[in-house]
């Protein structure tokens, strides 16, 4: 398919965007930064022949903070170079198990707001994805808002991704976690793993095993092992299933080890003390 055969709608308001979506439904594909959709067009694999360009919808661009949550509109994700085009909404809509913004959203108990003409619903993040590139979004719905829980002061958090190179590499394994420690005991652990299953997953068994336990090397080993066992990885051009399983263990182990040692500022592993 060449670019010229695609019709692009560029609504100037959310209402207009939802109207178009209601009319065009399966024929149209919402596009924000286009970092994924444009590649699909180039490769000739995008089935829709129309695009709904969300770049000029003012209602989709904000961050709001309340007492218990932060609302992020879909066009707000800031990072340099090509990634500064990408959006959280786009990352969710694309639904790649390797999408890097997704594991942190699991850890933050995010909810995704889906809006259509005359209604809206909020879907918890772990109910949003159905599989690789599949979500619960109906064709007339638009992702308009993502709500995340605020982390308690003192919460440790981490995000670590492994790719074959340091930049612009699709994750082979990624992990995000948050952990609250009280006098050396884990009050709670949340752990999400990316690129190791058809969707991002929460490592529930690992989280349960950590609850109310002292954070020791033995516990870390157990958590990391349970996390690794929770994966259902595949072998592809980027890495083998076995490696993904082993590396999941390593990523989780190292992140928790640094937290245990109070080395939260270790930039190499993306661990910083929460505030």
């Amino acid at each position, binding site marked *: 398919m060449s670019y010229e055969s695609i019709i692009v709608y560029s609504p100037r308001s959310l209402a207009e965007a939802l109207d178009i979506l209601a009319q065009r439904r399966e024929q149209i594909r919402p596009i924000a930064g286009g970092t994924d959709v444009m590649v699909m067009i180039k490769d000739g694999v995008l089935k829709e022949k129309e695009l709904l360009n969300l770049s000029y919808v003012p209602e989709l661009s904000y961050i709001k903070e309340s007492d218990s949550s932060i609302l992020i509109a879909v066009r707000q994700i800031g990072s340099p170079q090509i990634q500064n085009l990408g959006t959280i909404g786009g990352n969710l809509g694309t639904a790649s198990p390797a999408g890097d913004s997704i594991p942190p959203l699991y850890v933050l108990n995010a909810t995704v707001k889906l809006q259509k003409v005359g209604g809206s619903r909020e879907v918890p993040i772990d109910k949003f994805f159905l599989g690789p590139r599949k979500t619960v979004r109906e064709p007339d719905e638009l992702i308009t808002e993502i709500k995340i829980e605020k982390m308690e002061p003192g919460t440790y958090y981490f995000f670590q991704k492994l790719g074959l190179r340091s930049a612009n590499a699709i994750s082979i394994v990624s992990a995000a976690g948050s952990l609250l420690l009280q006098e050396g005991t884990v009050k709670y652990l949340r752990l999400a793993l990316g690129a190791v299953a058809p969707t991002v997953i929460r490592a529930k068994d690992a989280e349960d095993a950590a609850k109310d336990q002292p954070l020791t090397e033995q516990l870390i080993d157990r958590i990391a092992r349970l996390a690794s066992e929770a994966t259902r990885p595949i072998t592809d051009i980027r*890495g083998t299933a076995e490696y993904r399983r082993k590396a999941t263990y390593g990523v989780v182990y*190292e992140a928790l080890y640094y937290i245990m040692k109070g080395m939260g500022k270790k930039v190499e592993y993306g661990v910083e003390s929460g505030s």
Partner: protein
Amino acid sequence: MTSTESVVSRYESLNRSIPRIDSEDKVRGTLLYVTDIRLENALYAFTFRSKVAHGKINRIETEDAEKVNGVKAVLTYKDIPSLNGYGAIVPEIPVLAYDKVRYYGEPIALVAAESVEAGLEALSRIKVDITPLPVIRSIEEALDDNAPKIHEKGNIARHTIVKKGNVDKARASAYVVLERTYETPMQKHMYLEPEGGVAYIDENGTLNVIAGGQTPYRDKLQIARVLGISPDKIRVKNSPTGGAFGGKDDVTVQIHLALLAYKTKRPVRLTWSREESGIAGFHRTSSKIKLRTAAAKDGTLLSNEAAIYLDSGAYQSFGPTILDVSIETINGPYRVPNYYIDAYLVYTNNGLASAFRGFGAPESNFAIESMMNELADELKMDPIDLRLKNILRTGETGPFNNIIRHSEGLEEALKRAKEVFYRPDPSTPFARTGVGVAVAIKGVGFGTLPDFPTAAIEVVPEGKVRIMFSNVDYGQGINTGNAQLVAEKLQIPVSQIEVYHSDTKYSPDTGGSSASRSTFNAGNALLAACEKALSELRLEAASYFMTSSSSVTYRGGNFYYKDRSINIYELAKRLRSRGKSTFFEATYEVPRYPEPVEGTLEVPHMVYMYGVMVSKVEIDEMLGKIRPLEVDFIADIGNVINPAIAAGQIEGGVIQGLGYSLTEYYSYDKDGRPLNINYTTYIVPTAKDSPMINVEFVRTYEELGPFGAKGVGEIGIIPVGASISDAVADAIGKRPYRLPILPWDFI
């Protein structure tokens, strides 16, 4: 750090890191690369490629495609006027497939249309009927007795044995004998500018082909052979090209462009997409090398036995000579009194292998240098001492009966390497660190093959000296380096020099940019042209001064006699006013041994570059992450014309070698479809992955070279695989025998 102190420059042109003369245009974005060129009224060209990796072509139907509105030509093998073949060494690669297809993506038809849409529509309407044949994906499969034959003559493109002494006897007396098998992957060049260009017939009837390339005169000949017209009716211009690394040394788009322009009589534009480049562009030969090497207790090498297998892909491009370089470098820079090299170039259905920076040397280097490091382990010797014990010294006779002209630079580099050879401290509790070393050798130019580069200079009365040569500046900086050489010779500022290069309309045939030869060969030819110019201008000066030429002196662009002087531009004006030319052309005969060693095509070389690379790595065994921390690269490239450019060449080579060692592995699925054809899946390192690279040059002077220079382009990449894998071995206590070293190989 680079040595910047002047070795020989008397006129401030040499040994100086002047900015590249094309850098302003590049920084401003005003430089038009060949694929940026848009011609008025040009047709868009597309290539119809095989979706079968190996098969017999029964039928090609183009009628439907021809009917598409706006389509001006659909060409198949039937439309080729003369030879349906090209290839730098043997012209066996079909321009358009006719009886068989031998790799996925092999071109079958060409389309030229008024619009992109019409062209793509036509492509979708071409029908081919191909009976698939079993696909051969590896050297082992190709050599199997029952393997289907890719070519009528079988799956061995070239086999040769090169030997000396008695390896059995030597091995019997050895203290240690190691036998190991080493493997290296196919590597893609991944130049930023994919293959592409334009072609048109000008008002004089000349067919102009302007395309990214490396060797314009050979391209011109290859086009002429296919069209069956005289090369005089063809002009090839190759510059500026956005990266090549050997991947544009043989023909890519040039013949297709020429055919389409010739048939349609219209300007034509053809640029491969990134994915097309990934599928149909060239790549480095993969290798499998079995070594059995014997040494005495004191580390003296006694014998080296090698079975070398290179995967040439579906056809031979530079394969035969790549095999030669792998043979030449399998003994390293060492005194090897007995050797037996059994070398094979093998056909598979893995695309097209061809030249890639190092040209067979990185493949062999990984084997022999890994072997040297393991021998050092076995002998409990320092690996650098083991090398110092075995390197050939200046004046000695090398393994291929060549006299070593200079190796004192290598000795100095090894001694310097000792100072930086230590294991660094790990930076995390999960990390292990290691240090590794490897030594590289690579000949400059084409060995014993005849090479007669011609270059020219023109002294322009308006105050410029034009220099003309056909080597391509594809980013390596040859234009600047050659301008510096000429400036030094004529004792004038570089700013007075204008470069005309890689265009058969203006540049004499200096050959192409390959084999690290451009400084040495074009430089020497240019200096010879300068000699001619100075000699002619001296006569003119003598006539002007009304004295004898022997009483005239030359300095800084001026001829002097007593208290009078005249500069070269005024002299040029005087010559022109009498109808005489101020264009001076000279041919340089590249020194070579008269005959190749038995069993080879071009071994040995006369002039060699050397490099010693010390790598430090950190490995997280839990994550399987290898991070290069620091690289020290000490090189002997002869006198250094431009230290910044030369260091840049080595840094680029090292980073490209890090990709080869750690992340890059071009691969095919079971049906012979290439899997990683763009930057998303073919992982080249970025600046973020690059360690600190310290480049140092030992000070040497090669008398045969232009102002003592040798060459630099390839030496950086050659030792990287062995050096990095030695550092990995030091860190984890397990030696890698295969590149790249991937996380899942060791955790």
